């Protein structure tokens, strides 16, 4: 009796600990229940499932790709890669890479997914006509061939330590180049296959009988396109969706408080890109003044409500290459001195989309800059316009919240003078050379040192302002089981086949 009391007291203590806001509830207890339908609210429309169209390669839409294709690799804990359809991708010299696939893979029509299918897929995305954002990355491959059914060899133009990570996004979402579904949609080899698509509204996928791994628990997954943050959360609250993408700090806090299961990580880095090609940010002193005038701690407290961490530079705090970049301190006096040197009044427009946290960040920055005498206007545009401006370099300063920084090897490349992702036209040839050197270093310690140098140069030249590493992820209703703990991830990689519903 006494022992039972003690046990229940202990249970009560544990329960109380679980109820604390920081800990996520674990969902329904017991073994996974097979069957049923899980509805997932994502933040943008997916109009085509072709990996080359990039629509399923954003952090919030990766969950669709995980259902239909299951990439060769996904992001695992602490920046490591977890093999999915692949067994391994290895190299001695970082230039010739050997990919081993799991044996016996098949696309959802039963046709084999062998090494040749991977090579054909990569060749299609590498094509100069391809719309894939990965085309430039794929172009690093000078030669590739299937050695046998499950082995492919890749040769790169230059050694690149970050090559395997390319296969977590478009290049790893192997779509059949020989067959298509009856409705023309591409075929993947993931745990689910497309059942139907309602344009502008939702996608329905069902369990694929040809999947070679552990089958998904739920019979059917429905992905609903809900672009508005608040409506998406309200859909979760009302039960219209079982899971929802969530990247607004106060809604994450609210979801925890209301007993929902939250799988989030500080996976989105809030930054602003400064256009170094035109006035006023062609002057490094103006960039440094803006950088010194922005109090990142205050942004963290106000915009992220203290969740997440301050971003110190292009290497994330949880990157395997984390090296303690020394970001210039918040120092309004230094900002004023720099501006006095420049002599002319500084004013510029800050372009952002209309998500609540983005507007809040913009207004807070506006006040901080106003305090040192910089006039900043806020230019709120819709997401499509924002994207066009970013890619066309049509901005003075533009907010860029991205998961790209999760991949240190790849993202440092955007600071090279001619890189596609170098939206602000930052040109420091030394940084470009260092990035090349770092990627080509077989010795990991040497690579880490060079990357640290790159990061330090970047924060000192301030072509991009780093604000916070902010929380993002999925929140689920309490009846959803199998929600993973993603808190040690750099990219939110939710595998929908592991989810189940207790209803």
């Amino acid at each position, binding site marked *: 009796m006494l022992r039972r009391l003690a046990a229940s007291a202990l249970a009560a203590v544990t329960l109380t600990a679980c109820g604390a806001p920081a800990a996520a509830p674990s969902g329904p207890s017991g073994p996974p229940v097979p069957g049923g339908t899980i509805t997932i609210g994502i933040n943008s429309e997916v109009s085509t499932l072709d990996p080359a169209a990039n629509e399923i390669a954003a952090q919030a839409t990766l969950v669709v790709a995980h259902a239909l294709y299951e990439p060769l690799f996904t992001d695992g804990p602490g920046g490591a890669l977890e093999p999915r359809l692949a067994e391994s991708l290895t190299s001695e010299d970082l230039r010739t890479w050997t990919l081993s696939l799991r044996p016996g893979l098949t696309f959802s029509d039963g046709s084999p997914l062998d090494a040749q299918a991977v090579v054909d897929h990569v060749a299609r995305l590498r094509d100069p006509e391809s719309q894939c954002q990965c085309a430039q990355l794929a172009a690093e491959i000078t030669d590739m061939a299937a050695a046998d059914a499950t082995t492919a060899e890749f040769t790169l133009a230059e050694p690149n330590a970050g090559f395997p990570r390319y296969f977590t996004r478009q290049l790893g979402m192997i779509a059949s180049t020989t067959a298509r579904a009856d409705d023309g949609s591409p075929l993947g080899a993931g745990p689910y296959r497309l059942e139907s698509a309602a344009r502008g509204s939702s996608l329905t996928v069902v369990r694929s009988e040809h999947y070679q791994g552990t089958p998904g628990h739920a019979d059917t997954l429905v992905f609903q396109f809900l672009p508005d943050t608040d409506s998406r959360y309200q859909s979760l609250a009302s039960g219209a969706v079982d899971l929802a993408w969530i990247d607004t700090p106060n809604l994450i806090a609210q979801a925890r408080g209301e007993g929902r299961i939250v799988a989030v990580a500080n996976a989105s880095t809030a930054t602003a890109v400064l256009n170094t090609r035109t006035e006023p940010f062609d002057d490094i002193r103006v960039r440094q003044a803006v950088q010194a005038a922005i109090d990142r701690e205050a942004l963290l407290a*106000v915009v992220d409500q203290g969740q997440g961490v301050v971003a110190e530079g292009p290497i994330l705090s949880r990157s395997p290459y984390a090296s303690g970049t020394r970001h210039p301190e918040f120092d309004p006096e230094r900002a004023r001195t720099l501006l006095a040197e420049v002599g002319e009044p500084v004013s510029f427009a800050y372009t952002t989309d209309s998500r609540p946290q983005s507007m*809040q960040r913009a207004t807070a920055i506006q006040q901080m800059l106003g305090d040192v005498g910089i006039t900043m206007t*806020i230019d709120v545009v819709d997401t499509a316009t924002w994207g066009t401006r970013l890619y066309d370099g049509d901005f003075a300063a533009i907010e860029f919240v991205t998961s790209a920084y999760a991949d240190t090897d790849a993202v440092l490349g955007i600071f090279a003078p001619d890189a596609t992702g170098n939206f602000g036209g930052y040109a420091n040839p030394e940084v470009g050379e260092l990035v090349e050197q770092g990627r080509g270093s077989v010795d990991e310690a040497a690579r880490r040192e060079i990357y640290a140098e790159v990061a330090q140069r970047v924060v000192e030249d301030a072509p991009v302002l780093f604000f916070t590493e902010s929380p993002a992820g999925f929140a689920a209703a309490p009846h959803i089981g199998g929600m993973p703990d993603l808190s040690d991830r750099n990219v939110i990689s939710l595998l929908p086949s592991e989810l189940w519903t207790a209803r």
Partner: protein
Amino acid sequence: MLRRTETRRDALVPAACVAVLALVAIGAVLAQLLPQLDPLRADFQAPLRPPGPEHWFGTDATGRDVFARTLAGGASSIVVAAMTVAVGLVVGGGLGVLAGFARGWVDALIGTLLDVVLALPGLITVMVVVTMVGPGRLTIGALIGLIMVPAFARIARSATLTVRGQEFVQAARIMGAPPLRIIGSEVVRCVLPAVAAYSFTAVTVAIVAEGSLSFLGFGLAPPTASWGGLIAEGRTHIATAPWICLAPAAVLCATVLAVNVLGERWGRSRP
């Protein structure tokens, strides 16, 4: 006895409405003048504070005073409403009088034009134009005004038609007065009260339309305070910090109600 209570209520209700509007107007002016009531200044140390002695309506997620922002939001609404009525009265009233007085092909042409404007979905048209030319109080006010033009014009036209056939207008015409002079001295005087009564409705439409536009993100650019914008900013926090939404919503509601009641009284009291 019954009569006295009615009389008292007759006097009290409009007085209360005038008081609400006066408070909104004074608050809007004070928010522009008093540095303590800066709607843009944020205290980053005090986000999401509930209402209290320091911040009467609490603070928003960035630490800005909701009371100051609500007052300043009133200024946006006043400017937009004034612009709407000005455009509606001048353009709509003018076209209506012209159509009613001239008749014939002028009337037909203006009628067709107004039907075209009426056929456009109001808010969507404003959104499209705002996306192209950029937001601003005057732009938004003028656009809502243009959307209201057909309503003003129809009222002005029907009032003109009744005046047109009356003796004093006929007399002026026979005496050889030029048409513009007749319109200026005889017609407008009679048409104005009818159109002015409709202005009250136009004001409420303008305030609500501006609120809707700002709520949808097509209104005034942040950080400019506007009631719709404040409500939109606050809705993410409605579960944890309802005061951010409720304060501007309550003031918006009270203002529209007061204008409506006054407009109704004005309409009833006219001979």
